[in-house]
């Protein structure tokens, strides 16, 4: 098996190029600290959206509780990195947070993933609310006041690294056998089951991978913004993530990335109009859904679009 194919080199090249471009813009000073926050938010939102897309877009399991997993990752990472104040502590916290979210994801997934459609959505929503209330009442999380002064190790480099990692891992997962099983479940659960796919198992796997990356994003959030309170991870946060996923297109990783960037820019742009910000956001949401209910990308990836263009040319050459 060749790993250094032309395609992979192209991908690697564009990853490094994007990084270099943003890095140069930051160093030159065109992107000041205000925009850096926007970029950080976009990175975290990409991880969240891509992981939720795996659950909702590719496996077809409608989850409204992604913020719950994010909050687990955030709190675990914050607590560990506050005890161990080194980069190692931060990375350990990230990993521990993501794993904690995975464990909770599996524990919750096994009973609730038997449910379908709206019932699952409501069950996951309830689960996220329970997690929030628990954090609100625990001693170690400092209740409603929240945690302050979390050591800030997450920077643009780490954020970019983990964002790329999340996209690559989830993309590769989808191309693997379990990933194909997940897509089969979305297309038709009964047909998938009769083809011998253990639907519960693959649903739980997708849920666990989704929870892992949500936890990771939470840890990065905690470290970058060095302040946490349970209210940050309410129902609204889950909805925010879902909006990115649906806007980008269910079943399109490219779409999730584009939508996360687009919404991040819109939010930053509207920052100066605080009063009408949410109104514009809401109207935009409704209008996009009415005129393009399948989302910006539908279920197409960037490769599909490129193939379409190049495909025609190649025919001519042949």
């Amino acid at each position, binding site marked *: 098996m060749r790993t250094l194919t032309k395609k992979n080199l192209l991908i690697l090249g564009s990853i490094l190029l994007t990084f270099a471009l943003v890095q140069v813009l930051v160093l030159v000073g065109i992107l000041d600290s205000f925009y850096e926050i926007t970029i950080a938010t976009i990175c975290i939102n990409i991880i969240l959206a891509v992981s939720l897309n795996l659950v*909702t877009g590719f496996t077809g399991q*409608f989850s409204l509780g992604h913020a719950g997993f994010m909050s687990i990752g955030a709190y675990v990472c914050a607590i560990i990195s506050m005890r161990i104040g080194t980069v190692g502590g931060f990375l350990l916290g990230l990993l521990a947070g993501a794993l904690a979210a995975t464990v909770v994801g599996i524990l919750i997934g096994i*009973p*609730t993933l*038997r*449910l379908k*459609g*709206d*019932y699952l*959505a*409501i*069950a996951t*929503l*309830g*689960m996220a*609310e*329970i997690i929030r*209330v*628990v954090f*609100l*009442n625990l001693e170690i999380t400092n209740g409603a006041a929240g945690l302050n002064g979390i050591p800030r190790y997450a920077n643009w480099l780490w954020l970019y690294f983990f964002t790329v990692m999340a996209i690559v891992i989830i993309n590769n997962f989808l191309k693997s056998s379990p990933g194909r099983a997940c897509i089969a479940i979305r297309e038709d659960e*009964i047909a998938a089951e009769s083809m011998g796919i253990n639907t519960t198992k693959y649903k739980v796997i997708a849920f666990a991978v989704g929870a892992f990356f949500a936890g990771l994003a939470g840890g990065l959030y905690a470290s970058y913004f060095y302040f946490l309170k349970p209210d940050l991870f309410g*129902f609204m946060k889950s*909805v925010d993530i*879902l*909006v990115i996923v*649906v*806007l980008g297109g*269910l079943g399109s990783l490219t779409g999730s990335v584009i939508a996360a960037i687009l919404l991040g820019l819109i939010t930053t742009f509207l920052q100066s109009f605080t*009063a*009408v*910000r*949410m*109104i514009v*956001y*809401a*109207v*935009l*949401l*409704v209008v996009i*859904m*009415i005129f393009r*209910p*399948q989302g910006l990308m539908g279920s197409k990836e960037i490769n599909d679009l490129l193939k379409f263009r190049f495909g025609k040319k190649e025919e001519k050459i042949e």
Partner: protein
Amino acid sequence: MDQFLQQIVNGISLGSIYALIALGYTMIYGIIKLINFAHGDIYMIGAYIGFAVTTYTNLGFFPALIIAMAGCTVLGVTIEKIAYRPLRNASRIAVLITAIGMSFFLEYTMMFFVGAEVRSYPMILSKKTFNFGDILINIQQIYIVLTAVALMILLQFIVHKTKTGKAMRAVSVDKEAAQLMGINVNTTISFTFAIGSAFAGAAGVLVGIYYNSIDPLMGMMPGLKAFVAAVFGGIGNIPGAMIGGLGIGIMETLISGYGNSMYRDAAVFALLIIILIVKPTGLLGKNTREKV
């Protein structure tokens, strides 16, 4: 024992409010399979209409209630026409996102116009209380329960004894078949939204009286809890929503009264998850067979 009964009394009055909201949820879900997230915000707007009417025009409880219901009816039907009707054949998740968008729109438009601060509701009912042994029941609670019961009886009448009600039931069973029988599906759906929104408006006024404070984001939590109530009773089932609402209300007051009120919301959702796992169709829901 007296304290227990007192909590039950409080729970019934809170539960009747939840039941009124849950009815709208369950009817709309029953007919177009949409979790109408904007429903909780229609209830918020009902509360504000009631507030405006009683503060600026000196009208009493019943005119305020009726005006709020009428206002919410118009609002609900308009929302359905503008936002949900173009998506009748789109995927359900797209409609759901639209509903969430509508919910944000109502919340933040209200915030833009009336400000984010909490307002206290005018006293439109006397504070008189009755003692039954050691149990206190005040006039407000009596009004709340009586209004809720009257509206529910009215709803039962509409759904089971009128032609429109029959059409509603028919559309919720099978949209295409209903259309073939000459039922105007769009009108029927609009009518369902009208009734559901009117009930939410009534609940808004009642909750303003009960809690004595309103703010633009007040619809979120009760909206979700009312949905839990609807699922608890069996979604799409009207008596189920009533029982679910009362159940959730009583449970909440009992937890606040005896345990830690911080865990009140968590308990509601924990109950939801347990119900969904043990009996996904809810208490009174019908079992539907999965067909290929």
